């Protein structure tokens, strides 16, 4: 029965009662069923474009995406029926037919859990293309892009409200664009790096990290994180300084922080080199 602000539904045979407005994905988690996702991000509106989170809903002609579909009274949901597993396997195989061995843990888990054959659909067009290295702060390697829309959302209404990038083109040609394929420097981008922060693949990466990876010097296990507060203005954004061999190599902010919710501006994210210059006093005193 529909009572108050709660909804009763059945997930894999188990009856659950959850608050109205809960996405199916969260209801499933409460029922002990973890749903795989690729495009979903805790800080962003679900775009539901990867379709990895589909579940079977009795009475529905197609599968439904658990990240965006909200619970309804009386729903009967199956999270690991053959149809569900078949679709998830197909999605993993399709993605792996276009992106070169993507370094995405979630995608690798999806391959594992569905028994996907990574070579199944590898006979046609891929996204292979040169890396775009057109600015000092981050690179774009769209050969790894899974078009999850996270960067678009972070740049747009979900965080930055700059709207410097969007999807352009159609079908297989759909891609992230700065508008007429301009370089980032010529685009509306303000280099906040929030798109880099949320990108689940290696498609967007800080230049520092990318350079260190090129030379084999990037070692995740040796990175230490120091928590601090940004010193540029009075907002008080929390910063996590990622330090490798006594040098800051990356700055992020925790998604749980009430002020930033993980998002920063260009100064907080990229303006850290002054900390590690040997001596900058002469630079300051020589300013006119």
């Amino acid at each position: 029965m529909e009572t108050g602000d709660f909804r009763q539904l059945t997930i894999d045979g188990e009856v659950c009662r959850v608050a109205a407005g809960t996405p199916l994905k969260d209801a499933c988690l409460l029922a002990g069923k973890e749903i795989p996702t690729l495009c979903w991000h805790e800080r962003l509106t679900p775009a539901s474009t990867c379709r990895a989170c589909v579940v079977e809903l009795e009475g529905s002609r197609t599968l439904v995406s658990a990240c965006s579909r909200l619970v309804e009274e009386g729903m009967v949901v199956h999270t690991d029926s053959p149809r569900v597993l078949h679709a998830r396997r197909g999605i993993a195989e399709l993605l792996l037919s276009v992106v070169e061995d993507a370094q995405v843990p979630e995608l690798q888990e999806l391959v594992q859990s569905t028994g996907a054959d990574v070579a199944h659909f590898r006979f046609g067009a891929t996204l292979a293309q040169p890396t775009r290295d057109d600015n000092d702060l981050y690179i774009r390697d769209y050969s790894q892009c899974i078009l999850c829309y996270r960067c678009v959302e972070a740049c747009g209404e979900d965080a930055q409200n700059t709207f410097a990038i969007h999807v352009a083109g159609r079908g297989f040609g759909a891609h992230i664009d700065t508008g007429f394929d301009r370089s980032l420097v010529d685009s509306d981008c303000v280099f906040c790096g929030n798109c880099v922060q949320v990108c689940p693949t290696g498609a967007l990466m800080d230049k520092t990290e990318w350079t260190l990876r090129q030379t084999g010097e990037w070692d995740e296990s040796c990175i230490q994180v120091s928590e601090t507060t940004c010193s540029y203005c009075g907002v008080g954004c929390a910063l996590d300084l990622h330090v490798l061999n006594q040098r800051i190599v990356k700055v992020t902010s925790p998604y749980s922080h009430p002020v930033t919710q993980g998002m920063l501006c260009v100064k907080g994210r990229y303006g850290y080199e002054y900390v590690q210059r040997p001596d900058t006093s002469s630079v300051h005193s020589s300013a006119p």
Partner: protein
Amino acid sequence: MSQQGGAQQRLLPNQEIVTQSSPLSFQRLQLRGLNLALERAFGMTTKSMIQEVQDSGIVGRGGAAFPAGLKWLSVNEAAGHSKYVVMNADESEPGTFKDRVLLELDPLLPLAGLAMAAHGVGAHKAYVYLRGEYRHLFSPIQQAWELLERAMPQVLVPLEVRLGAGAYIAGEETALFNSIEGKRPEPRLKPPFPTVQGLFLQPTLIHNVETLANIALLFRDGADRFRAYGSTATPGTKLVSISGRVNRPGVYEVPFGIPLLEILEGVDTAQGMQGGQHLQAVLLGGAAGSFLTAAEVGEATYDYPDLRRYGASIGSGALVVFGQSDVLPEVAQTLAQFFAEESCGQCVPCRIGTVRIKEMLEQFSLSEKQSDLRDLAQTMRDASICGLGQSATTALISLLDRPVLWNWGL
């Protein structure tokens, strides 16, 4: 192209009306009985209008055959600070050209239906979303609305005509809303449905051109007389677009429930196969439709319940007729190219799936890849966001299911 109707001609104006009046004249409005129909509809309460639409049994002619009355009821009951009605004139389904013919021959009929629909659901504004290639109809549509405004002063809502820019996907209702709003025509996730959260996130009634033409006839004739045509399951007539190897391709009006073969052979309709050709198959419902073999065409009737037995549907009303010399696997390739080009690219199963299907058909034979094609088709059908990806392989699978149409080795 022929535009004759069959014996039961209602949606298309008959020869007499066409010769006696021009499409954009008061005389046409009167000869079609539309002035009285408008007065009748605008004199009714919202509630009784919706009841009449429900009694009529009209189902949407845009492809999905959803009961119109249910949509009206839902929009009417939905809360919103404004409401909209939209005429979907994006007509881009391959093999479908009946909305164009209807709007060219008699724009007053569907637009009168749009005006009535606006009244019926309490809308504040009406939109027509017109396929970019139909720009010659832009001004006639505006003129028709002005004429209706003069016939019914002070009661019509404002109309805005918007021109598409050449994307098939913009015909999908929620992509169409995004397009009107100035965004990329990407389909939205449903629910919420348009009746609750449509254009500008407000309750919206969207209908195909032909559905609205039926609405106008309904309020002219009343539900009982409306139901005198067609079958018990599906009252009314249907505009079919016939192309391919027939003597007289064109748009014809037929009652639901007519034997399928009669549409192809009738003297009032397509008049049979072109010289020397034997019927091999019909692609029913457009690119997202199903192939029927000649034998099936010989038995089937043109109605939803009967066609369901063959896994087929009426769809947009397209019938593409193939002769024995046509190579259907090549047709399947053309369809696959179409979907790969027209996918909006938003979701993985369709963005990548349509390309992989196209490549498989180009690089391999159907028998070599049959199981991979079926495997991928199921993922696309189950997991794609919208109708494009979900039905992009319907025709292909219907072909695979009928080896007589492609597996000549048998």
